[in-house]
């Protein structure tokens, strides 16, 4: 009963006001979701690049001047 009285007291164009504010918040939300998806892509790319750097660091450094022992052996074969 109280709810019905409260509802009657509200102006009848509340729906339009709510719709206008919802449109605004929806626009901002869509923008934020797009930004979040971009951020997720950057994170993936950074992970890939980090892996690439780790792989490079794990590899033995190339010797300059003389050929490495493995390369000499391969050449003999």
């Amino acid at each position, binding site marked *: 009963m109280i709810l019905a009285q409260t509802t009657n007291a509200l102006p009848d164009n*509340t729906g*339009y006001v709510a719709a*206008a504010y919802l449109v*605004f918040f929806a626009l901002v939300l869509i923008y934020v979701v797009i930004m979040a998806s*971009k951020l997720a892509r950057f994170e993936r790319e950074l992970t890939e690049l980090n892996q690439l750097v780790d792989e*490079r660091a794990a590899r033995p450094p190339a010797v300059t001047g003389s050929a490495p022992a493995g390369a000499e052996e391969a050449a003999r074969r």
Partner: protein
Amino acid sequence: MLYGTRLRALSIATLVTMTAALALAFFYAPMDADQGFMQKIFYIHVPLGIVALCGFVWGGINGIQHLRTRDPKYDLRSYVAIHLSLVLGAGVLITGSIWAKASWGHWWVWDEPTLVSFLIVFLLYATYQPMRFSIEDREKQARYASVFAVTAGAFVPLNFIAVRLAQAYTHPRVFATADGGLPAKMQLPFYLSLLGMALLYVTLWRYEMASKNTSWQLRALRRKLAGDDAVPPVGRTAAPTLPTS
């Protein structure tokens, strides 16, 4: 330049200002004698419109800077400003239509100069992205886009003044009217809402700039680490490209 700096503080300031503005609009500002509760749309519709139009002008200012210096960062700034203003512009048109329906009983009124002039500005800027996309040469694309941003940016205030000078209008005037304009208790929520909207625009602009810059820095890093073959060439796009070396 790092566009991501101070973004957290800016985001918090935006959130606080917007929340305070909405609270004041609904709980402090009095009901309008004519329109009643539906006048609350005003606190979001008008700031959206003002900030969108200022964003278009900001795009034009960056266009001038780009034409003067040929620095691609200004083209990117102009592009992001116009892109964001278009999003806000769509919001202005939709919220305005809702208000028109509630107030006048029609979604759109063609003999209303303010509505039609905003639509003209919006449609003008809606051609910006297709125009950029149609030009393949990057240098030419940036230059033409800047010329567009400058001329269209100059059109925005001219258009606004022309509409203000028009005699027959039914659209409500809020500033400097003969009857005195906005009542004092409505001014505070309105100006706070305007500030919040401006902060929201600046925050989203900086997020977008940071995103574009990060994307190109990642591309440059991948090229350095894995060689040119690891980075696919940039296809035809409307978005500006930044030097990655």
